[in-house]
């Protein structure tokens, strides 16, 4: 009451609080910008485990074990072996398809091809398409398919392997469902995930290759992963 009745004091009070609000708002703005600048990192996906690790001083601590794509060996479109080492120090996008598929595969590969073309000059971004048609899609068929798609060179690998090896790595490691189904029109059923793998062979993203929005997200996420790998 006294405060309000005294005009000089109340003006002082208002001035003070205005200054206070002003500096507070500046602080907020700075904080906001700082938050914006913070680099987004991609999560590591898949199941994880823990293990006890011994420190140098003899104490133990618990470490996280992330899902990792294990070593593999398939034949590529040139009948040469394609292994985990083919993608050493690279990031790559993996998927599962078959050449005679007319449902989701053309759309997936149409989208993958645009990414392939975008990173034409970047050897650090690779592609790995596994065929799930172990009966028909021998390397020469894959080569023909790759050529027709407009893919040349080793940056996009088309992998052929036994049913067991391909189906196992799909379901257990890349976490993509694939199956042979004689009731389906084209004998095979599979999901259309494009799986983003980092140089430590961890899964960093999975995007529906038939969904334009998710493919756009993948295109945004690749630079983030590339920047992280550079560090």
């Amino acid at each position, binding site marked *: 009451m006294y405060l309000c009745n005294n005009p000089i004091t109340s003006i002082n009070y208002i001035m003070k609080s205005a200054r206070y609000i002003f500096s507070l708002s500046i602080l907020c703005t700075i904080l906001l910008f700082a938050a914006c600048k913070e680099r987004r990192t991609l999560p590591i996906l898949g199941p994880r485990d823990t293990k006890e690790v011994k420190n140098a001083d003899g104490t133990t601590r618990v470490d996280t074990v992330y899902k990792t794509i294990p070593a593999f060996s398939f034949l590529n479109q040139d009948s040469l072996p394609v292994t985990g080492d083919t993608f050493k120090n690279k990031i790559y996008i993996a998927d599962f398809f078959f050449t005679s598929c*007319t*449902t989701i*595969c*053309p*759309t997936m590969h*149409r989208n993958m091809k645009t990414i392939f073309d975008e990173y034409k000059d970047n050897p650090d971004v690779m592609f790995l398409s596994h065929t799930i048609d172990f009966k028909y899609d021998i390397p020469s068929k894959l080569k023909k398919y790759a050529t*027709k*798609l407009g893919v040349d060179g080793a940056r996009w690998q088309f992998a052929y392997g036994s049913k067991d090896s391909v189906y196992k790595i799909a379901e257990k490691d890349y976490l993509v469902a694939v199956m042979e189904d004689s009731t389906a029109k084209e004998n095979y059923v599979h999901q259309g995930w494009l799986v983003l793998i980092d140089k430590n062979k961890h899964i960093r993203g999975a995007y529906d290759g038939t969904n334009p929005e998710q493919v756009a997200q993948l295109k945004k996420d690749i630079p983030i992963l590339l920047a992280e790998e550079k560090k």
Partner: protein
Amino acid sequence: MRKTLLTTLTLAVIASIIYSCQNADELKQQMYYTNGRDLYIKHCQNCHGANGEGLGKLAPPLTDTLFLKQNKQKLACLIKNGSDTTVTIHNQTYEGKMPDNPQLFNIDIAQLIVYITNTYGNKQGIYKPEQVTEDLKNCR
């Protein structure tokens, strides 16, 4: 005076009847076109693309207006029975298989053909289910 008035009126009525008939045909074509687009997205777009651009050398584009014109009678067979013969589009050969669509009815095929032959630079007008029945008789 009365005669002229009557004649003008009759002529006007006839003209409007013809006009509305044409409109009905146009309306039908528009209906076919719209339904055809939905069918296209469902059955064709995966390979032939959202803009009929095809897919590399795997699937031919649908932008060759001359090819579509010259082969219009074969389109119904192609869509229903698929194809495994080599085709040449824009001077580029495409081998490989086009899948069949035996589940499609003649009306679906007619709508698809109206869509395909009136978009991507094509402008061939209406195509009716009766024509599909005719064309399907001549499939090889």
